[in-house]
C-alpha cells in the first residue's frame, strides 16, 4: 500500500501505546510534574544529573511559605502559596513541621509595615493572628527582646529532599521511572519536533537515547542552558541567595522580620540548626557560585536582630543556590523585584514541538507548577484526564526505592 506518513501526521497505530514524557530535573518541580503526569496515565521518565534535589530545591531553607512575605508586594504569589500550603499539609503531612511562623517588628520601619501587611494578608486570604509582646515571648523565648508588633502566620518547615522523595515515590508507584545520575547532554530534534534526549549515565558512563512524545525542562536555574539545546531562549535569570546554618535549635517557629522583603529577613529551625536566609545577587553559572563574605556577615547581623541567639555562634553550614527568576537579564539588577511566580513556556510558540519549559516559582508551589505544566503537556498528548494531585495523599518517602 506504501502510503507515506508525513512527519506531521502521526499514524493511528501509535495512539494505543500510552503517551510518554521525559522530565529533565528531579527538583521539587520535576518531582511534582512526574507525579501529576503519572497520575494521569502518562509514561514518565525522570532524568536527573545528580542526586534528587541536589540543585536549587535541596539548598533552600525549607520554608513552607504561607505567602505572608509576598502579600504586600506580589499578591499573586501570596495566594498561590497559601492555597498550596494547605494542599501540601493535606497530601504530605509526614514531611512537614506545621509549627506556624511569627512576623516580628523589631524597629520603627517594621511597625509602620504592620498596617499594609495585615490588610494584604486579609486580601490574600492568609489567616493571621496578632500577638502582644508577652505572648510572643512565651511562645518563643529566644526571640529578640524588642518586639514592637508580632503577627502569627501559618508558615511551616519542610525538608526539601524528603518532599521530593514523597512526590517521586508516589510517581514511581504509578509507573514513572527515575534515572538518577543521568545527565541530559543533547536534545534529539527532528525537523521542528523534539523526539527525545541523549543522556549519559554518570554512574556507569554509558550514553544512550531516550525517546518520548514530550520533553519537559524542569531544571530550575539551568532552564536557559537546557532550552538552548533546542535553540530556544528562555528568560530565566539565575539569582543566588546565601543561607547560613547555625548550630542549636533556638526556636521552633519560623521567625520573619515584619518589614518589606530584605536581606536576612528570616530565621527558621531545621532540625538541630537555625537557618538564616537570604540574600540575592545574579550569577551566570549556577554550578559555581562563590559566596561574597559580606553577605554572610549580613546574615548574622540581620538574623541576630530577630534571634540574638545566633550572635557569636559558629556557622555550621554556609550554602547558596541559584533561584530561577523569570525575567530579562537587564532587569536582574533589582533581583528581588522580579515576580516570584512561575511560568510554563510551551515552545510550540517558538516553533519547536514536543518541548516545554517550566521555571520560576518556589518549592511550596511545586504542585501548582506541576498542575499547570501537566495540563499543557496533556493537551499536547491528547490526554483528557483532570488533575487529581490536590487530594491524592503522597506515599511515604521511604517507599521511594520500592515503588
Amino acid at each position, binding site marked *: 500500500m506504501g502510503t507515506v506518513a508525513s512527519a506531521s501526521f502521526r499514524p493511528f497505530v501509535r495512539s494505543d501505546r500510552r503517551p510518554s514524557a521525559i522530565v529533565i530535573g528531579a527538583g521539587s518541580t520535576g518531582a511534582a510534574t512526574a507525579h501529576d503526569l503519572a497520575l494521569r496515565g502518562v509514561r514518565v521518565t525522570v532524568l536527573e544529573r545528580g542526586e534528587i534535589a541536589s540543585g536549587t530545591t535541596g539548598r533552600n531553607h525549607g520554608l513552607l511559605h504561607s505567602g505572608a512575605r509576598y502579600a504586600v508586594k506580589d499578591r499573586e504569589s501570596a495566594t498561590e502559596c497559601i492555597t498550596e500550603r494547605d494542599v501540601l499539609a493535606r497530601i504530605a503531612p509526614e514531611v512537614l513541621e506545621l509549627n506556624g511562623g511569627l512576623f516580628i517588628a523589631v524597629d520603627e520601619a517594621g511597625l509602620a509595615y504592620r498596617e499594609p501587611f495585615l490588610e494584604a494578608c486579609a486580601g490574600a486570604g492568609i489567616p493571621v493572628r496578632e500577638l502582644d509582646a508577652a505572648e510572643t515571648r512565651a511562645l518563643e523565648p529566644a526571640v529578640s527582646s524588642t518586639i514592637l508588633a508580632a503577627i502569627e502566620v501559618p508558615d511551616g518547615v519542610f525538608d526539601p529532599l524528603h518532599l521530593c522523595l514523597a512526590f517521586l515515590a508516589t510517581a514511581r508507584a504509578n509507573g514513572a521511572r527515575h534515572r538518577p545520575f543521568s545527565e541530559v547532554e543533547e536534545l534529539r530534534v527532528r525537523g521542528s519536533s523534539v523526539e527525545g534526549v541523549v543522556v549519559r549515565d*554518570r*554512574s556507569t558512563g554509558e550514553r544512550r537515547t531516550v525517546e518520548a512524545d514530550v520533553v519537559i525542562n524542569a531544571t530550575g536555574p539551568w532552564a536557559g542552558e537546557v532550552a538552548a539545546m533546542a535553540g530556544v531562549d528562555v528568560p530565566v535569570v539565575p539569582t543566588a541567595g546565601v543561607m547560613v546554618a547555625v548550630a542549636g*535549635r533556638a526556636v521552633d517557629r519560623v521567625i520573619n522580620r515584619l518589614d518589606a522583603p530584605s536581606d536576612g529577613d528570616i530565621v527558621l529551625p531545621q*532540625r538541630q540548626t537555625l537557618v538564616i536566609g537570604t540574600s540575592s545577587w545574579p550569577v551566570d553559572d549556577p554550578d559555581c557560585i562563590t*559566596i561574597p563574605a559580606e553577605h554572610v556577615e549580613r546574615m548574622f547581623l540581620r538574623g541576630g536582630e530577630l534571634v540574638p*541567639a545566633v550572635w557569636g555562634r559558629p556557622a555550621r*553550614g554556609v550554602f547558596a543556590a541559584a533561584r530561577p527568576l523569570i525575567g530579562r537579564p537587564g532587569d536582574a539588577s533589582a533581583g528581588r523585584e522580579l515576580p516570584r511566580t512561575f511560568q510554563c513556556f510551551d515552545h510550540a510558540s517558538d516553533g519547536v514541538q514536543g518541548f516545554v519549559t517550566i521555571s520560576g516559582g518556589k518549592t511550596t508551589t511545586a504542585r501548582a507548577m506541576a498542575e499547570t505544566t501537566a495540563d499543557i503537556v496533556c493537551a499536547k498528548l491528547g490526554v483528557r484526564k483532570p488533575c487529581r494531585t490536590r487530594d491524592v495523599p503522597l506515599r511515604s518517602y521511604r517507599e521511594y526505592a520500592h515503588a
Partner: protein
Amino acid sequence: MPDEQIRLRLWRTTAPQRERAGFVETAVRADRAADSVLDVIERVWAEADPTLVFRHACHHASCGTCAVRVNGRERLPCITALRDVWDGHSALTIEPLRNVPLVADLAVDPTSQLDQLAALRFPYVRTVEESVRCATGIERDADVGTAERFEDCLECLACVSACPVASGSPEYLGPAVLAAAQRIAEEPRHGDVDRVLDLVDTDHGVWQCRSVWACSAVCPSGVDPGARIMDLRRRLLRRRPIPAGAPA
C-alpha cells in the same frame, strides 16, 4: 577567593561497569578558611571530573544524604569545615560509607535500612517534649502547647558505617534502626510499641550490640544510638511475662 590546592583521594568505582574500584587522586582549588568538605567535593565534580557520583541536597545537616568517610571517619561533609580535617598540605581521603550497598563512587543506597525503618513505622516528625529546654537553655512552660519537630535522626547511616558489629554481620539491625525503635518506645504516638519491641528483641537486634559506642561518637545529630540501645535493653528486661490466662 580559594587559593590553596587540595589533593583529594576519592574512592572511585571506575567504568565500564563500575566493578573496578580504588582511590583516584584529584587536585582542586580550596579555601581552607571558608570551605566545607562538601564544597570541595562539589568543586571536583564541577571543575575537575564531572563523572564523580556523590550525594548532596540540603548542605546544612537536615537531609542526611551526603554522609561519607573523611580520613576514615564518618562525617557529614556539608557541615564539616575543611580547616577541621585538613592540615593544609596532606591529601584528604574520602570514601563512601561502609556496611551499606554502594551505588557508585561516594553514593550508597540506603534502601535496606530505610525498609527496616518503614517496617518499624518510624515517624519522621516528633512532638517536642512538654517543657522544652531550647538550645539557649530557656525553659518553656508546658501549657504553651506542643510544637512539632523532625526526628533528630537524619537517617544518614553514619552510625551503621561506624559500627564494627554491622561490618561483620549484615543481619544485625544496626544502630540506626535500634535508635528509631527506642524513639517509638519512648514516644509511641499511637505506634504499636509491643510489636516494635518484639522486632528488636532478637539475637540480631538489641542483644548483638557490643557497646563499642562508635555510633554515638559519629552521630552528627546527637541521637546517641548507644545509650538508646541500652535503654531498649532495660525496657526489654523489665517486660513482665503475661500471667497465664490474662486477657490477650
